[in-house]
């Protein structure tokens, strides 16, 4: 229970009276860096935002005040905290018996559902002391729900997979997909080459995908048909969601050219329909 005289509302205080117990150095995006705020400190009774002069704005804890307000103010000044940062904040608060935020409210302010599992994942990540991993999580704004697939692994394998993120040249979505497939193959006890855990690029992604789904894409029945398209038509086998097919392009600048193209397309159609049983290709 905090002493009554400390239960005050917002006030301006001089920095000499501030006992700063914990500081978070915010990661500001360059074009969003505020001109005034530099730092934020949480102390036992509230949190303090440093201005550019000798005075500070101090938001003190007030049990009659809605703690949701505290989290809104906090997240306003620190919009870019990751779930790992939030766990650090919570652990600090617990250590110093501060009640300015509840876990649910703090996470909600960052649009992340709070779950004890995320806490254990974050603690594990912190224990790795891998700055590149923390930077990846921060830059790519990785949410804990996106790493749920890791919970099926033991901590040693989890570390291996997490480290893959720091070696990735792929986008966030691709990297997460790569990590998930790697996790699946690990759980399937597949013998994986160490190179899958090293530099990760597009060709490695494709290679891993073929390992994960050996009955896949490259053996699609449409590809086995060997349809001829003619010189005027460029056909590319593509996948759009759950449908794979041919994206066809052509250029026509006269009715004659159009007629020629249509004739070629009709030949391709005959080619396509000449093998009635495309199901055989899926064996």
């Amino acid at each position, binding site marked *: 229970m905090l002493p009554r005289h400390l239960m005050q509302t917002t006030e301006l205080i001089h920095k000499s009276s501030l006992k700063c117990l914990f500081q978070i150095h915010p990661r500001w995006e360059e074009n969003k860096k505020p001109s005034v705020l530099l730092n934020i400190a949480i102390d036992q009774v509230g949190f303090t935002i440093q201005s550019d002069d000798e005075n500070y704005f101090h938001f003190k804890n007030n049990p009659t005040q809605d703690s949701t307000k505290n989290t809104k103010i906090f997240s306003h000044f620190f919009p870019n905290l990751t779930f790992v940062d939030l766990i650090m904040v919570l652990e600090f608060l617990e250590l110093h018996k501060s009640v300015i935020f509840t876990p649910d409210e703090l996470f909600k302010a960052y649009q992340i*559902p709070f*779950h004890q599992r995320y806490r254990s994942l974050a603690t594990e990540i912190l224990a790795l002391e891998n700055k590149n991993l923390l930077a990846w999580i921060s830059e790519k704004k990785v949410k804990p*729900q996106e790493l749920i697939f890791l919970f099926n692994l033991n901590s040693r394998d989890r570390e291996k997979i997490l480290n893959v993120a720091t070696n990735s040249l792929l986008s966030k979505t691709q990297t997460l997909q790569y990590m998930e497939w790697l996790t*699946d193959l690990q759980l*399937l006890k597949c013998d994986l080459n160490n190179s899958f855990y090293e530099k990760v690029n597009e060709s490695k992604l494709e290679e891993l995908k073929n390992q994960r789904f050996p009955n896949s894409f490259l053996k699609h*029945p449409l590809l086995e048909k060997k349809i001829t398209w003619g010189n005027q038509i460029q056909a590319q086998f593509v996948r759009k*969601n759950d*449908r794979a097919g041919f994206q066809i392009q052509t250029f026509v600048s006269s009715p004659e050219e159009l007629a020629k193209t249509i004739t070629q397309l009709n030949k391709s159609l005959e080619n396509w329909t000449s093998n009635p049983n495309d*199901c055989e290709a899926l064996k």
Partner: protein
Amino acid sequence: MKDVILDKIFIEKNSLKSKLAQRMIQIFPKEKVEILESEYDLSHKGQLSKEQFEWSKKNLLITEFKGHFFKRCPGATQKKTITCCNYYVLNLGSQCNMNCSYCYLQSYLNTPIMKAYSNIDKAISELREMMIEFPQLPYRVGTGEVIDSLSLDHLTLFSRELIPLFKEFPNWTLEFKTKSNRVDQFLDLGPCQNVLVSWSINPPHIIQSEEHDTACFEERIDAAKKCREKGFPLSFHIDPIIWHPEWKENYSYLVDEIIKNFSPEDIKVFSLGTLRFQPEQRFMMKERFGMNSYVNNSEMFLSESGKMRYDWHLRNEMFQFVFKRFKNHNPKWNIFLCMETPETWATSVNVSPMNVPGLKDFFRPLPKIKNELSEESIGD
């Protein structure tokens, strides 16, 4: 089929005098039953963890339902992408005591306990009101959306309340959809031509590997035969069709066994569907059933409807395979595709449901029910 195993039955005080609560108190030993002075805390937010989900299958809450019991099947909300059959649902509880690896409840439910509603009389009044307003229209009402229709029915006896109501309104159809063999408790109420007893069914190999704690293949077939003998029409839902290396042999066996035991006249309708699930469900499935489960092994793709599905060509192949095997035996088998796009209908079965005499009524537009209309006006 194994007996239902419940660790605990919680009964809210305001449900204590209900028939359902009294029945539970009679059936279960004292130490399993707990009367709650206040409402059970259902304030859980977000998806359930594996442990919470598994706990919810073994603990039952008897409570009153405060919403609308009767509403349209959620598939109808995806009408822009899929061909929907105008199914309505009557939710008399939620969660399921059985354990299928692909079950959509893993991503759909976020309440941490199984529920059975004590105020079925309110459900009956809601239905009766609609039935009196539209007695001539062919509404189809199922009770198996978020709970198996019959796996707990030998305890709840809801079937014995519903069947007499539907007997009064012969144009309306009640469908029980189940993976259990629990039918003995209502057979004496037959015959009843508008109470359809239907089974979700898969080949024995898939039932064993993916549909845990359900009735085995033979038990479902035997239960269906019992219902047929007592004058209840039947239906089978081969859904989800799950790809595995021997899928053709196994689904052939399934089709052949159905053909051997039943005639097209016995089976009012068949529906076919392939494996599909919300993308986030894959995490729970992997955690609970491991990577050796067929549902976790195959390559799935995000479809336009937002669900993960097999490749479109593979789906078509599977539908064509099962469809043709039935139709080659007898063109009278009535088969439709569940939650599929118009393109899949056209390619797989070469027909639109509106052009099939036995299926036309399923897809014909029906007047909206009261709560659909009030939800629309809130949205305006």
